[in-house]
C-alpha cells in the first residue's frame, strides 16, 4: 500500500514510449532489410567500411582528447583567475556553441583559419605566407574542438568549483605547489567526471555530419555519417547505406551503454553553485601568469575568434543582397516553422515522458521502458534515423514530397533525449521536495501540475524548448537526405551557397542564421519565464 500513485500520466508516457520504440525498431528493421539485400560482402566493400569506420573512430577519439587537452588547462586557469566578470564571459562563450548551427560554425572557422581568413591576413600583413585552405582532418578536428572544448570547460569549471572550500583552505595553508594541488585536490574530483565527459564528446564527434561534410574536403576524410549520405543520395546504394547505418548504430549504442555506466542517468553537466577561489601559492608568480595568459589566448583563438569572424564577415553589402533573395525568405519560413513545431513537440513529449518517469519512480514502478525509448534515440543518430525512414517509406510514398514532415519528425526525435534529460532531472528533484507537501495539502492531478509543477518547471521547459528548436533550426543532417530545390532550409541553403563558392553571401547567411537561432532560443526561454511568473489566483 502506498500513498504515491503513478496517475494517468504514467499510462500516457508508456504509450508514447511504446510508439517511439516501435518507430525506432521499424527504422532499424528497414536498415537490416536493406543491408541484407546486397550482393554479399565484397572485399572492396568490407575494406571501405573498415576504412571509414576506422577513420570515424580515430577522428572522434582525437577530437575528444584534444578538446580535453584544451579545456582542462583553461578551466584551471579560469578557476585561478576567477572573478564575476570572467565567470559571466565564460558562461556566455561556453553556451554559444551549444545552440550555434554547425553550418554557421564552419563559416566562422573558415573566416579565421581559411586562406582569406583573419589569421592568414595577419600573417600576410607581417610579410608571411597565406595559410593553406582549411579543409581535411585538421579542419574537422578544429571544428570539433570549437564545439566541445567549451562544453568540457563548463563542466570542468563547475567541477573545480564544487570542491569543498575546506580543501582549498588546507591547500593554501600547506602551501601546496601547482602540481601538488592538481594531484591531491583537483584530480581526485576531476577524474570522476572526465571519463563520462570523454564518452559524451566522443559520441557527439562520432555522429558529426555537417562539419565533416563542409570541412572534410573529400573522400579521404569521410565518416560513417557522410558515407551513409553519399551512399543514399549520390550512389543510391541502399545495401551499403544500410550496412553503414547499422554499424554506426551498433558503435553508438556501445558508447551510450558506456556513457550510462560511467555517468549513471545524469550526463555530465554544469553543477549549480560554485565555491570561491582562494589565493594559492604561486598563483601570482610571473611564470604562472604568463602560462595562464598563453592558455587563455589559445582558447580565445580556437573558440572566440570564429564568433567574431562570423560578425565581421557577415556584416557586409552582401547582407542586403541575401535579404533580397526570395529563396532566403522561403527557407527562413520553412526553417522557423519546422524549428518552432519541433521544439514544442519535443518538449511536450519529453514532459510527458519525464513526468511519467517521475511518477513511476516515486511509486516504485519500472521506469526502464521510458529510459530505453529515450536512450535509443541517443544511439540512433539523425542520419541513421533518416536512412531508416527513407528506406521504410520509399516503397509506399514519394519521400521527397514528405520531406517537411520527415525533417520535422527527425529533428524532433533527435532533440528529444536532450529535452528529456533537462526536464527529468528537475522533475525528480521537485518530486523529492513537493510530493509529501502536495499530498498533505491535497494538491493533486491537474491542480498540482498547473499550480505547482508547471511554474516551478518553467525555466527548464523554456530551456528545453529553446534548445530543441535551436538544434532543429541549425540541423542540416536530415534535410540533406530529403532536401530538394523545392524544399530548402536555411542551413541547407547556406551549405549550397558555400558549395558554389559564394563566400560573401554565405557569411551573410551564416550571420542571419546565427541571429535567428539566438532569437528563437531567447524567445522560448523568456516566454517560459514570463509564463512561470504569472500570479497564482
Amino acid at each position, binding site marked *: 500500500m502506498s500513498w504515491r500513485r503513478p496517475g494517468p500520466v504514467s499510462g500516457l508516457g508508456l504509450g508514447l514510449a511504446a510508439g517511439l520504440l516501435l518507430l525506432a525498431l521499424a527504422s532499424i528493421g528497414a536498415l537490416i532489410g536493406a543491408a541484407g539485400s546486397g550482393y554479399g560482402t565484397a572485399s572492396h566493400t568490407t575494406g571501405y567500411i573498415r576504412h571509414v569506420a576506422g577513420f570515424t573512430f580515430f577522428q572522434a577519439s582525437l577530437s575528444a582528447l584534444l578538446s580535453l587537452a584544451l579545456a582542462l588547462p583553461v578551466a584551471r586557469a579560469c578557476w585561478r583567475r576567477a572573478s564575476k566578470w570572467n565567470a559571466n564571459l565564460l558562461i556566455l562563450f561556453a553556451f554559444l556553441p551549444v545552440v550555434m548551427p554547425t553550418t554557421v560554425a564552419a563559416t566562422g572557422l573558415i573566416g579565421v583559419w581559411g586562406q582569406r581568413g583573419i589569421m592568414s591576413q595577419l600573417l600576410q600583413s607581417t610579410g608571411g605566407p597565406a595559410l593553406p585552405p582549411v579543409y581535411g582532418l585538421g579542419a574537422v578536428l578544429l571544428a570539433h574542438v570549437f564545439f566541445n572544448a567549451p562544453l568540457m570547460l563548463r563542466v570542468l569549471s563547475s567541477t573545480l568549483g564544487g570542491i569543498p572550500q575546506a580543501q582549498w583552505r588546507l591547500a593554501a595553508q600547506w602551501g601546496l605547489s601547482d602540481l601538488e594541488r592538481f594531484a591531491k585536490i583537483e584530480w581526485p574530483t576531476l577524474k570522476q567526471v572526465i571519463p563520462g565527459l570523454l564518452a559524451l564528446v566522443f559520441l557527439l564527434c562520432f555522429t558529426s555530419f555537417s562539419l565533416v561534410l563542409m570541412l572534410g574536403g573529400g573522400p579521404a576524410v569521410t565518416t560513417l555519417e557522410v558515407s551513409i549520405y553519399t551512399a543514399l543520395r549520390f550512389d543510391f546504394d541502399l545495401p551499403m547505406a544500410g550496412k553503414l547505418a547499422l554499424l554506426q548504430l551498433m558503435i553508438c549504442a556501445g558508447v551510450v551503454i558506456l556513457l550510462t555506466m560511467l555517468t549513471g542517468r545524469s550526463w555530465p553537466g554544469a553543477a549549480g553553485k560554485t565555491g570561491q577561489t582562494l589565493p594559492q601559492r604561486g598563483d601570482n608568480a610571473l611564470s604562472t601568469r604568463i602560462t595562464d595568459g598563453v592558455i587563455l589566448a589559445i582558447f580565445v583563438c580556437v573558440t572566440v575568434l570564429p564568433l567574431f569572424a562570423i560578425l565581421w564577415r557577415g556584416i557586409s553589402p552582401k547582407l542586403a543582397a541575401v535579404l533580397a533573395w526570395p529563396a532566403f525568405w522561403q527557407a527562413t519560413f520553412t526553417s522557423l516553422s519546422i524549428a518552432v513545431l519541433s521544439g514544442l513537440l519535443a518538449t511536450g513529449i519529453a514532459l510527458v515522458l519525464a513526468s511519467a518517469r517521475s511518477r513511476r519512480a516515486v511509486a516504485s514502478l519500472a521506469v526502464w521502458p521510458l529510459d530505453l525509448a529515450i536512450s535509443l534515440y541517443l544511439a540512433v543518430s539523425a542520419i541513421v534515423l533518416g536512412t531508416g525512414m527513407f528506406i521504410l517509406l520509399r516503397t509506399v510514398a514519394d519521400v521527397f514530397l514528405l520531406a517537411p514532415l520527415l525533417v520535422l519528425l527527425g529533428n524532433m526525435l533527435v532533440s528529444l533525449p536532450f529535452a528529456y534529460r533537462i526536464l527529468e532531472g528537475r522533475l525528480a528533484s521537485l518530486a523529492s521536495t513537493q510530493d509529501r507537501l502536495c499530498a498533505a495539502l491535497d494538491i493533486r492531478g491537474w491542480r498540482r501540475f498547473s499550480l505547482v509543477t508547471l511554474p516551478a518547471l518553467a525555466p527548464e521547459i523554456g530551456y528545453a524548448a529553446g534548445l530543441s528548436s535551436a538544434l532543429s533550426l541549425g540541423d542540416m543532417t536530415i534535410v540533406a537526405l530529403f532536401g530538394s530545390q523545392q524544399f530548402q532550409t536555411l542551413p541547407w541553403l547556406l551549405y549550397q551557397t558555400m558549395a558554389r563558392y559564394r563566400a560573401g553571401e554565405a557569411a551573410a547567411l551564416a550571420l542571419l542564421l546565427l541571429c535567428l537561432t539566438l532569437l528563437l532560443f531567447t524567445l522560448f526561454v523568456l516566454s517560459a519565464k514570463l509564463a512561470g511568473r504569472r*500570479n497564482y489566483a
Partner: protein
Amino acid sequence: MLEIRSVNFTRPGGLSFSYDITVAEGEILAVQGPSGVGKTTLLDLIAGFGYPDSGSISWNGSNFLASPPWERPVTTVFQSDNLFTHLTCLENVRIGLPSSQRDDHAAIDAAFVRLGIDGLQNRLPDAVSGGQQQRVALARALLRDKPVLLLDESFSALDWPTRQGCFDSLREITEARRMAVLFVSHDERDAAHLGCKSLQLTA
C-alpha cells in the same frame, strides 16, 4: 480523540517501533527523545506517509489508516520544504486551503497578524527568514481547520521569544478549536512553556 492503538512499524532496515498513544481534543502532546527513536516516524504514520504493520489510528473512533494523506483529518508542518518557492507567502497559504476558504482574506490576514508575519504576504519564501517561513506554514496549517495538527520540529528555527509567541497562539487555537496537537521537539523548555504533557520515546 486521537487514538494510536498497538501500532507496530518496521523500517526497511529492520528497526521496529511500537506506539500506544492517546491525545484528547484540545490537548497538546510534546514528543521528545534522542535521534532515531521514531519521533518523525510516528508523525508519518499518523499523516499517512508510512503504513504500520499492525494496529489502528483513529479520530473519534473512526480508523483512518486506509485513507490516503489528503483524506485524513490531519495537517502537518514539516521540518523543512513547507513552502513552494515559486509562490508568495500568501499564495502558499491559499493553495493549501479548501476552495471555500481561499478567498476569506480577513481570516488569512488575521492568521498572518497573529503569528507576527504580517507584511510578508507578497514576498517569496526565499526573501524571508527560515523562522518566518515556518510561521507561514503554521498559519496555513491552522487555517486548514483539520482536527489533528502535527508539528515536526517546526519551531526549532525560531528564537526563544518568537517561539514563545507562537506557542501562545498555538495553545489558544488548540483550546478554542478543540484540536489534538502532536509536536516533536528537542527542547524541554517547549513543553514547560506550553504546560502540556510530554511523551519521552526511548530506543
